[in-house]
């Protein structure tokens, strides 16, 4: 019964995803799918951060950094031409075991680059290792201090992306090839793959939601929530609080990095703005609007706000809008504008209805 209750909204989400695609197909507005795909990837970052913030009670203003680590590494590894080093030991070895692939640049030049799968794994693992390395010391901090430290991390990644010629400086990385997940299934921005990519992105969201929903309803999830509720008492009950905080920090960083990898392949490139502090603030703002400890709220707001932003509704005031949203939410609705869990709402309404009906029945009898 509990499981049923947990997974019903996921099925509902699946139905919504399919129906949106069908609607755009029949109304010939499938250009919306591009922004919906991007929003889906950003929402993966948001729901990962939601579990860190809302359930684990730890803030991070550096998640755009993890997103950028994933995106940039995938971008660099799949575009950097290794042809000149073909006969050198390590490159030759990688080539031999099939981790490199041949390709052609836009100008017909022969390329030898890292296979997207290998690049993806390297990118995500690197983000995980960095999260492990900085999470250890940083998560000892609390509140503002933790926010400042993670902010500092975000700025470092941003400056590295902006300054390093390997990462294309202000131009970022372009001409990133598609990512063939399976034969016939490729993450790429090409027009013909639009519908496919919409489903890839949403498939990733659904898997992420399922994993996180399971997690927060498990023994470990309970321990995470207890850390948020009263860390000292959680520790006294035998919860290794620092380890759990670190795990959830790494998990959310892995989600961000994976989203970064996919967005980079989808867009065919990545720029330093993806690593910017304002991006991190945006993710935090969206989690706050969604109601902190509410994966569904974070997901819905993640889709809506990112979609509006990507459609250019906020114009040049994009970052300002998210800043204002954060301030307003903190002031007036610290529990988010979707405070009420829609499922509980439906349940309580139906309970009310049943009760009324019972009362009517008893009057009749």
């Amino acid at each position, binding site marked *: 019964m509990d*499981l049923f209750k947990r997974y019903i909204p996921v099925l509902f989400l699946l139905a919504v995803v399919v129906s949106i695609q069908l609607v755009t197909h029949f109304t010939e507005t499938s250009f919306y799918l591009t922004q919906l795909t991007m929003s889906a990837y950003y929402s993966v970052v948001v729901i990962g951060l939601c579990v860190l913030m809302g359930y684990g009670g730890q803030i991070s203003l550096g998640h755009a950094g993890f997103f950028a680590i994933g995106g940039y590494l995938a971008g660099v590894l799949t575009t950097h031409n290794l042809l000149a080093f073909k006969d050198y030991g390590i490159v030759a070895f990688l080539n031999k075991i099939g981790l490199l692939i041949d390709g052609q640049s836009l100008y017909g030049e022969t390329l030898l680059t890292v296979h997207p799968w290998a690049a993806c794994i390297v990118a995500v693992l690197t983000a995980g290792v960095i999260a492990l390395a900085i999470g250890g010391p940083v998560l000892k901090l609390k509140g503002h201090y933790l926010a400042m430290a993670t902010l500092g991390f975000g700025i470092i990644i941003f400056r590295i992306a902006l300054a390093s010629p390997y990462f294309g400086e202000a131009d970022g990385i372009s001409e990133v090839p598609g990512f063939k997940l399976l034969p016939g299934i490729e993450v790429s921005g090409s027009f013909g793959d639009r519908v496919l990519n919409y489903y890839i992105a949403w498939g990733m969201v659904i898997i992420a939601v399922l*994993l*996180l929903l*399971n*997690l927060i*309803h*498990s*023994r*470990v*999830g*309970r*321990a995470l*929530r*207890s850390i*948020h*509720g*009263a860390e*000292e*008492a*959680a*520790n*006294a*009950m*035998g*919860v*290794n*609080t620092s380890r759990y905080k670190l*795990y959830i920090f790494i*998990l959310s960083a892995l989600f961000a990095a994976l989203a970064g990898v996919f967005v980079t392949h989808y867009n065919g490139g990545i720029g330093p703005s993806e690593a910017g502090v304002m991006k991190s603030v945006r993710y935090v703002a969206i989690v706050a609007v969604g109601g902190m*400890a509410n994966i569904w709220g974070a997901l819905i707001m993640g889709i809506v706000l990112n979609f509006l932003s990507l459609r250019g509704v906020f114009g040049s005031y994009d970052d300002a809008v998210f800043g204002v949203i954060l301030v307003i939410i903190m002031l007036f609705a610290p529990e988010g504008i979707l405070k009420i869990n829609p499922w509980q709402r439906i349940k309580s309404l139906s309970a009310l209805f049943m009760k009324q009906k019972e009362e009517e029945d008893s009057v009749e009898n």
Partner: protein
Amino acid sequence: MALLEIQNLNRYFGGLHAVNSVSFAVEPGMIKAVIGPNGAGKTTLFNLIAGNLPANSGTIYFNNTRINGRKPYQIAGLGLSRTYQNIKLFHGMTALENVMLGRHIRSKAGFISGMLNLPWTWPEEKLIKQKAMEYLDLLGVADCAEVEISNLSFGQQRGVEFARALATEPTLLLLDEPAAGLNIYETAEIGRLITKIRATGVTILLVEHDMSLVMDISDEIVVLSFGEKIAEDLPHNIQKNEEVIRIYLGDEDN
């Protein structure tokens, strides 16, 4: 050896000698109370035992294991559980979930198996829930199970906190002023409850201000004053101890 053995424990806060060479032992199965005026170092002593504060010197043995220097969660894992003077429950969670957390050290589903919701975790989760309900029932707060903790009365919260501590199945339970903020009926109720818990084989060490409760239920009493142990005896001897009377009521000349 005693269940809990404290030897020459010292703790300073700057120039304040909060716990001054305190030594005593708690035998298995007894209810031992620590009393003393405000600022005597009782809560500090508890925090030293539970691992929330490091001691400056001295040793604490629990079940023949030296526990000072260990982290609170490690000490909890050895079978020592506690409650707090100002109740520390997990807000944003229901009473049942709070007590379910008490089962944390008695269960083992990990990060990955939780995330994948692997079938072998289901019976464990069911057992956790069932056990938690039993403890809520034992404390008479079973009907608050689904209520978020902030919506409970003070007395009910105390009950939930007790249930959570018991759910860890401790061998030693530290109670920090269990009767604080309770009226005389509730205090008497807590007293009966503590004796009931002891009857299940749990050893209890408590800090308490309420003398009637302490005299009623404890087997032995340790008296602290300004960080020093000034007496350790049976309750009726403590009542007659001149030094104890002096620190509580003052000298006749003053």
